[in-house]
């Protein structure tokens, strides 16, 4: 809770300072509303990032280094946390072939494409399935996304990619009655 408030305050200060003192637009990432599908033994969650890779990511993706985009799924009821799962979408570019490889570890899906736009669409999407527990009734499902530090091995430099999202950690929350839905 405090972490969320803290990150919101930091993002607010950063946005204010950028608004006042910089013409730099950067990225203002946000999450699409959550969609859930409840099966017999699983809950499928779908969402995606918007405005997350509009500026400055071209050269980062084309560096050839694997760029991870992390998603955290939390299911809770009040203060009781049922599930906290972390998933990662990764993008790896091969400068020799000019192909992007996008891997979704939540679904095990791997896509190869030469199109930058297709790569952006693919890496922005998030989908996962979580085993359903009958005890779940009224729950809050939250998915948030974040970037992390990346090491450029060829030049031996480490950078924090969060700066490209102006320290914003986009999230999407849904209150659902899973017992009724089932």
């Amino acid at each position, binding site marked *: 809770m405090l972490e969320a408030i803290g990150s919101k305050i930091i993002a607010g*200060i*950063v946005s*204010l*300072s*950028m608004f*006042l*003192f*910089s*013409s*730099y637009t*950067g990225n203002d990432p946000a999450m699409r509303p959550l969609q859930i599908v409840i099966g017999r033994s699983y809950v499928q969650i779908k969402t995606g990032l918007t405005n997350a890779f509009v500026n*400055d990511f071209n*050269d*980062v*993706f*084309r*560096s*050839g*280094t694997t760029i991870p985009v992390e998603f955290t799924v939390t299911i809770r009821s009040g203060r009781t946390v049922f599930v906290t799962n972390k998933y990662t979408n990764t993008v790896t*570019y091969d*400068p*020799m072939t*000019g192909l992007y490889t996008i891997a979704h570890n939540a679904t095990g899906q791997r896509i190869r494409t030469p199109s930058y736009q297709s790569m952006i669409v693919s890496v922005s999407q998030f989908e996962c399935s979580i085993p359903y527990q009958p005890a779940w009734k009224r729950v809050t499902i939250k998915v948030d996304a974040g970037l992390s530090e990346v090491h*450029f*091995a*060829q*030049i031996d*430099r480490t*950078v924090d*990619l969060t*700066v*490209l999202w*102006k320290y914003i950690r986009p999230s999407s929350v849904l209150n659902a009655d899973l017992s009724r839905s089932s």
Partner: protein
Amino acid sequence: MRLMKPGLRAWIFVLFGIVAIGGLVILNGFFQKQQNKIESTIDALTDIKELGSMAFLTPVDSIQARKLINRHQQSLGFVKITLTQTRLYSALILLGIILASSTIFVFFVLRLSRPLAELREATEQIRRGNFSVHLPETGIYEMRALKNSFNLMSYELEAVQKRLLVAEKEMIWKDLSRILAHEIKNPLTPIQLAIQRLEERLGTNPEGIKEILPPAIAIIQQEIENFRLLAQDFSNFAKISQPQKESFDPATAIREICKSYEADYKLVCNLPDGFLISFDRTHFYQVITNIIQNAIDASCHDAPIELSISKDRSFIIISIRDQGCGIENESIHRIFEPYYTNKTKGTGLGLALVKKLCDTNRAVIRVKSKPGEGSTFTLIIEEVKA
């Protein structure tokens, strides 16, 4: 809406805004320009990406080229991220500098202006006559020096005030002693003379004492009565009671007072009925009696004394005019002072009592006079609606 004139603090704030914030914004603009130049230079480096599409004839060349391209691409990515970081951090640092400098500035301005507010408040106290106000000598050197000067001034004023009070009390006692001595001495002389005559007759012709005894007793009784009146005058002046105000017609009250004088003096009355004033009846009697007595004392026996009542807006004007000797210009502003008198016989308390009673009853007393022509005392009292 009343517009406030900007003070020193407002101007300092404006100056700070222009110099500090303006300067930082200009500096920021310069850095942004430099960052944009770096970015455009980085964009120019993208041509090397075309190397990726070239064919390298040997595997060694291919591996070497792949390494070079990777290195180049990673460098580009790194520089781009660092540039973004620079932009973001410079904006953050700028915001921090402005917030910090504004906070420090406001803190110092308040620290500087608080003693000035204290000084203003203390000066106001001095203006109201409270010379015992002293300030703690704290703050910066100049402020301490200013407060020190202020404190010296207030200590001196306090000392002068105390000396003046002592001197004033001394003067009052001296005046009072002089007046009392004079007033007591006056009746004592006739008493002493009467007793001496009685003693003399007793020694020379005891049978003939009966002839001078009645006039001597009359003189002694008269002078004892004078003593009583003198004591009553002082007593009246010392104990002015809280006014017990009531509404009455001043014309009726003045007519009642005039009855005692009409047999001996010429009083010309123009006293229309129908007005109402709110005044303590006893105080009103004392005021009118004292003014009439003053007019009688200043006039010849057959000179008329005019009494009139009129109305001006919401005020009742009571005038008592005599054709006596009048008051000298240099004395007229002192006639309401206690113990001030130009008469050969009198305590100087009559008109002082009148002034005090008028003040107590929220009335105004004024006097106009021309030496040799007479004086007019005017009493202004707010009318009460029936």
